[in-house]
């Protein structure tokens, strides 16, 4: 079959879209390659198609969407004043608001307590950053000092306990001479079961005096001491 120029023009789109059969494509190519009229035609249409495919997608203006909404759904009503405030609140989740409010209040109370805010005589000046910092600093130092004192007291208690235990375990007849002590130096034991050597007696006196001083400042130690004496 002889392919003609009219056929080339008629079937040009099929060729560009790849819709020709193998036989048709062969005859088309054979004709175009040898025809002085069809060669530039096919070339120019191919170029025009390629140029069309390079056209970019144009972005509409951002206002277009809102203009369409205004035209279809009508212009949006602008709410002002208290109605706008109430509408804003209505749009929020009440549970989340309550949870957030309670969390904020709890945090505020914790911070105020930590900074030794006086709830009985509250003052606005107490909320100033300088006073808050000073209160927090004072509280932090107090907590540190009390915890340090507690730890050192525990150490002293442990030391006294261990020494008293050691004193109890030592034999009573190591020293034959009984020291002549004045009554006021005697710690108060009248049953003769106290230490017999002067060194041990003095050591015991020191321990007791230290224990009494410590017990006066540490109630837990005082109770322990009293229990020990009884």
């Amino acid at each position, binding site marked *: 079959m002889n392919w003609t120029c009219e056929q080339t023009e008629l079937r040009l789109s099929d060729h560009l879209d790849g819709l020709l059969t193998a036989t048709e494509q062969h005859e088309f190519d054979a004709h175009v390659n040898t025809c002085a009229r069809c060669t530039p035609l096919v070339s120019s249409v191919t170029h025009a198609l390629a140029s069309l495919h390079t056209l970019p997608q144009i972005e509409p203006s951002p206002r*277009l969407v809102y203009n369409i909404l205004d035209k279809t759904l009508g212009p949006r009503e602008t709410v002002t004043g208290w109605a706008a405030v109430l509408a804003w609140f209505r749009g929020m989740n009440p549970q989340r608001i309550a949870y957030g409010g309670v969390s904020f209040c709890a945090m505020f109370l914790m911070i105020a307590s930590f900074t030794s805010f006086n709830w009985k005589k509250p003052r606005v000046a107490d909320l100033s950053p300088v006073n808050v910092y000073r209160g927090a600093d004072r509280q932090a130092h107090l907590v540190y000092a009390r915890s340090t004192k507690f730890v050192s007291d525990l150490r002293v208690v442990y030391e006294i306990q261990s020494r008293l235990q050691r004193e109890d375990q030592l034999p009573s007849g190591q020293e034959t001479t009984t020291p002549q002590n004045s009554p006021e130096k005697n710690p108060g034991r009248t049953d003769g079961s106290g230490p017999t050597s002067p060194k041990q007696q003095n050591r015991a006196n020191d321990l007791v005096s230290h224990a009494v001083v410590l017990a006066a400042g540490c109630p837990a130690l005082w109770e322990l001491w009293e229990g020990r004496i009884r």
Partner: protein
Amino acid sequence: MRQHNRRVFNICYRFTGNRTEAEDLTQDVFLRIYKTLASYRAAHGGFATWMTSVTRNLLIDHYRRTKRDRATDSLDDAMPVVENKESTARRPDEQALLGELSGQVQSALTKLSPELREAVILRDLQQLEYAEIQRVLAVPEGTVKSRINRGRIELARILQQMGVRPS
């Protein structure tokens, strides 16, 4: 609406060559769709096809309305202003060439008759299948193929007259 407005706008822009007219026509398309949504039937084809059909009808109506005005316009007014939206990865000279070519192609498109223009836009720019274009234009498939073929050849001839030649 957000999903389709870009596509509708591009069809309107490529048909009219004018950004402002394209935006106005896009609004009219969605307004028409909003009003006649109840008349849509799935048997008529997909929703996108129906939307394209509404767009095409409004474009043809607009073309006929403004036909008289176009007869008195100067040739300079007919040259559209194409905004360059190409990727910044291209070199400036390549971008300039591309922008110039895009303007020339757009100008050539607006010189086609409306029947050929809409067929070429739907096939080569919107990548619609022949069957879908047949539903949009409500003409036989043979007519669709014929219009696309003649539109491409005519476009190539106009581009050659404008001095845009294949390398």
